[in-house]
């Protein structure tokens, strides 16, 4: 069961030496580990999308987050329950 987050809310991410170490969202801060990551660059001919995706796992959360390389913002896209 996953939750797709429509708004892709901005989240706080802690990065240590290039590695995502913790995420914070909805008053919750959780240390995480990255289990997969990839990059997409899309639709440059329309409105460019360039994101670095990270699948992170913590004690409570398995989440898909991404770094928006255009706006330089972090967002939460999906939460796996």
């Amino acid at each position, binding site marked *: 069961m996953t939750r*797709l987050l*429509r*708004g*892709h809310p*901005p*989240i*706080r*991410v*802690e*990065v240590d*030496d*290039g*590695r995502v170490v913790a995420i914070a969202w909805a008053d919750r801060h959780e240390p995480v580990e990255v289990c*997969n*990551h*990839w*990059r*997409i*660059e*899309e*639709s*440059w*001919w*329309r*409105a*460019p*999308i*360039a994101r*670095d*995706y990270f699948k992170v796992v913590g004690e409570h959360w398995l989440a898909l987050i991404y*770094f*928006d*390389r*255009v*706006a*330089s*913002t*972090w*967002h939460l*896209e999906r939460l796996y329950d």
Partner: protein
Amino acid sequence: MVAESQTGEPMSPTYAELHSHSNFSFLHGASTVDDMAERAAELGLSGLAVTDHDGLYGVVRFATAARAAGVRPVIGIEIELIDPAAPDSAGVVVPARRTSRGGARKRGPALPEPAPAEGLPARPRAERARLPGHRSVVKEDLRGIAERQRGPHLVLLARDATGYRSLCRLVSRANLDGTKRVPRFTHALLEQHHEGLLALSGGREGEIARRLLVGDRAGARAAVERYATLFGRAGARAPVGAGDAPATAGFFIELAHHLLPDDDWLVAEHAALAAELGLPVVVTNDVHYARPEDRELHDVLTGIFHGRTLDTLGALRRPDGESYLKSGGEMVALPPGDPAFAHADPRTARAWAEAIATSGEVAASCTVDLGFEQYRFPGFPVPGGETAFSYLSELCWAGARRRYHPLTSEVMKRLAHELGVIERAGLAEFFLICWDLMRFAKEQGIPAQGRGSATSSIVSYTLGISRVEPIQHNLLFERFINEGRTTYPDVDIDFSSARREEVIQYVYRRYGPEHTGMVCNLVTYRARSAVREVGYALGFPRPLVDRVAKALETYDSVMVRRDLEADGGFAEFFRRPGEGLPAEAGAAEAAHSLGFVDGMGQLNTRMPLVGKVPPWRQPPKPVDPAAPRPFAWLGAANAAGPSASGMWEEAPESPPAVRPGGRADDEGGPGDTPASVAWLRAGRGTGYGVPPARPGIRVRGEGPAPGTVDGRAIDPESGALEQPPRKTDRLGRPVMWDPPAPAASAMGRGGGDPKSSVARIEPEAPPQARGGSTVGMSDWERWLEFCARIDGFPRHLSIHSGGMLVTAAPLIDIAPIERATMQDRVVVQFDKRDVEELKLIKLDLLGLGMLAAIDETLQLIEHDCATCIDVDRMPEDIPEVFRMIQAADTVGVFQIESRAQMQTLPKSRPGSLDDLVVEVAIIRPGPIQGNAVHPYLRRRQGLEPVTYLHPSLEPVLRDSKGVILYQEQVMRIAIDVAGFTPAESDGFRRAMGTWRSTREMEKLHQQFHDGCMRQPGMTEEVAEELFRQVSAFASFGFAKSHAAAFARTAYESSFLKLFYPAQFLVGLINAQPMGFYPVEVLVNDAKRHGVAVLPVDLNASIYATGTEWVGQPGWVLAGAAGDDGSHDDETLHPGEELPEGAGIEARPRPVRSSSCVIPGAAARERWTPESATGWGVRLGLHLVKGIGEQHAELLDAELAHGPYVSLADVVERTGLPEETIERLIRTGALDSLGRPRRELLWQLREVTGASRGSVGTGGARRATRGTAGPAAGRPMDLRLPATEAPLLPAITEPERLGDAYAVVGLDARHQVISLFRDALDRLGAVPNSALAERRPGPVRIGGLVVTRQHPMTAKGTVFLALEDESGMVNVTLWPDTWARLRGVVRRHALLLVDGDLQRESSVVNVIAHDVRALTDVAERAGGPEAPAGVRQLGHAGMRRLG
């Protein structure tokens, strides 16, 4: 293994990219080899391997570019195998996919054929459709098929010369086994040709990765084992990367990381497998473009390849933009090199680091030298006891004794000198090969002549290669060949275009097919192809793309912008916001109210691609109910008042007609569809430009790296729209920037001024690709940008018009070959330039239409007049011929028929063959740009004295009256005046032409200047001026030897045109396409010269055009006319009667007017037999569209059987399709059946309908026309008379004329303008023939545009040749006139021109002020309404003019 420098300090790894694609991967690579090499040097790569798909097309260029850039070139390819290395029962490696449209076929183990059901015959297997003449399908349709659905990849690199040979053989064999552009690489083939090759596992699409990705580790291991066994393992070695493995290993596992989801895992798996099996690993990046931003072009190319738009490409595109050329540092920075990764998986991290270093070592171990000089001569068999040189000199001396009487010491001295040079340069065989070709041509009666620099040598003359005597014509041997020359001498031999193939076949036979190949011609993207394909890929609707492509004048894709900006119909799309029209206001409404077209060209009501965010790209349901509707923000912005630029305020309510051509322009022209016109109309005012700067746009530099902490909130900058309305994509993801921040993405070229990529290029800026990301450009801007970037990209191969490569070593060891479209013809994957670079020998065997025309003319003369003319022995000083040339009566004559030539001939008045050589050479860009033409003409006419800059120039420039006309003169000036050696002078000439480098030019300039100053009486100013003149001449001039060869042919064709106009016309028509004018002009010109031209008639015409006896004119029979046409009318014989439909009212008498020369009886008596005047021309059936060479034999044979008597007879005997017979009826070819045309058309359907089934009779002939179906039982089959046609009105003259023009593009009886003559008289227009007598001043003329020219040298001036029934006149449109009238002139072929008549020494010119469409004007003037065929002339004219 990290390399250590000599000081012992660890160096950063020297990375070399071993797997990359250039644009020679045909739509799979987005950068040129030069870009790749340049970028590799910038990044500090130690080596670069360009491994294009399945071919070695770019290797020569790449090797040159890489050496120039200082990067070690590695030659390689990436092949697509059709079979797996290890058993692949699951179809993992070679996936099953549809092999042709409409059905999937299972791969893998063949399934047994289903047994036929009892009692039923086995179902026949459907054959694939094949084009006639092809042994198999031309090209597999790979559109829509992703790489992963195709065969597995394998990268092969040549370690040394042996490896290169293996590559050539492998590619050649695979191509010969396959079909055109579909080579068949198999493991069996690899096993035969792997010597000297290194193999890399092929990355993600390699067999090993494919197996690993589906979990087939055992299969992967088996495949690796097989490859390693084939290509060789390193010696005993334990850990990965240790020892000197790369130097000996033949197979490498490729590690690549493109930041894809499972790349970490895949790299680890690969590394583990390599470690297990003790194989070395290399890192590659499977590069498809040089720089990150080229990714956009790569996507467009992928769209073009698959025939899809960017939006519909989906997974066929690469998901990210990581396939660019990366530096060693960037490779280290990828995740496997990351410290975090090393922590988690130290083994893989170590392998990655070592593999990066190994890549550099592998590149360093590959040494291929593409120098094949030692293989260049195929060996020429000479008689026993002779060497090539002794045989050559024997032939030359024998030839000299034959040609020179007496053999002067000058000749002997020169021949001895040339032979000496040839011996020292080792070129004897080269001359023998050329001599042998000419000998063959002569034996076979194939017209041939040597041309180009070859003609300047006495060796060529004595061997019969050239026909121009070099001493008499003062031709310089050093131009052709000298001892300092580094490039190969070029010899071009022209053969009759009709028989060139025989010579090619001879070369194949003589030197063997394994030593002979045709050089390829790389067809590259030009303006139209670029506009079309890029336009489709970007999603522009087809009608619009067609319309834009048709509006182009240029062939240069870089110039597309200039062309479209100049065109009234498109200018506004490139207007800067605020510069012209209101922008988006009202666009949506306007667009919705009009019928628009979708991507398939179908009309619909959807809004096409306008503005930044087309409506169909908007989400179907906005998240927020209050979110704006498409374009609503425009309305809001409008309502909110003027924006920052204030542009909307000034906008008038309705768009003003800004188009210079006026409203009539967007009515569209012929070729426009209603959809494209609607587009244009609606397009105006939609403002395709970048939307005006809106509040809320954020301009950023390159975003910070992912490692930065925390996301910054979207910074809402001040402005009316504090929070831009959120836009969401289909998946509901927020798009936080709106509109896109220009150049903000990391895809951009490293930041820079973000505004620069948005700003529209200034009109005066030189058009060129701007580079960088196209993000932020409007759709139109982007379209043009990609057109400019794709310019010159190779698109496909074709056979070069005549380059033959002849080699000593077997060709497939030196150059890869592949199948050509033509059956059994192979073509080398190298083009002309590459072959020169490789210093291989190339013979240019060109087809020249004029030689075919002259040949046919001579044969006809022999047949018709029983006279055999030997053109080689034709006197060079026939005065009548020069009189004709001086009168510029040269339509159809070789080289001097063009508009520009006809304008200069009356001024230069050539009176000898040497003058004609000047004439041929002078109308060239070189003399025109060097301002040599007018001084020469004035001096020639005695209007100014002949002067020389310096007395030392007099011997050099005496022939050309003090101006520089030939390349030889440049060299002679360098030798005689500036003191260069002959070898230096040739280098000087070429450097002048190419401007290779400023430093080199400076050096030569200094040398030239110093040399000149040594001449007595030379001043600084004169030396500088001389240098200026010489450099302005550059390389655009002809070599004199070249001009001399052409002048000779021009002279011969003039003779034939003058004395045998009918035969010459036939020769010209049958040799089409050739020359400057369409057939119609040639026919009309011949008619004006008294040649009866008979229309196409099925009962009289054979397939080809031919001559027909029409009877002699009176003045020949009376024998009374003088050469000037004077004769006593009373004694004039009436002449033989002209046949019906002869096309001329009466035969003109001999005249020598300013525009028409017809020789009289006295001249004819000297040069022709009497009968020559009695022949007319019968147009052939080949002129009718739909009748091609395949019908020739049948039609000629049927005519020989007897005349056709009825329509049914025609249908039955010719077997032509209904539409072709309809064309025959409409053109009058069936008038001889004696029935009115409308009746024949009435009956046609009935007759063809009947005989398509079965024809009752026909005997043996029927069998050749395929099997007959069951009898249809229609009236024809039962031999019943055809249904009576109702009383139909007879065809009118305008209808007849229209039909004739529509079907054959000309009418034998009347020129189309005669139809409008009454109207033209009413309008006060004068016929062209009257212009010569008219006072200069305002004039109105009407005519058909037969040619339209935009000479590069004329700076925007356009010239039209306008023909009416009485003659042709040159119309000049100055650039401003052209800009104003462009729309009309481009869209109509029948024009009414108002202008000023100018006359200068009998050269008539009309300077146009206004041009209108004649059909419209005539209609308003009460003239005839043009019939459909004539109306379409506009279209036909456009097509004809390209």
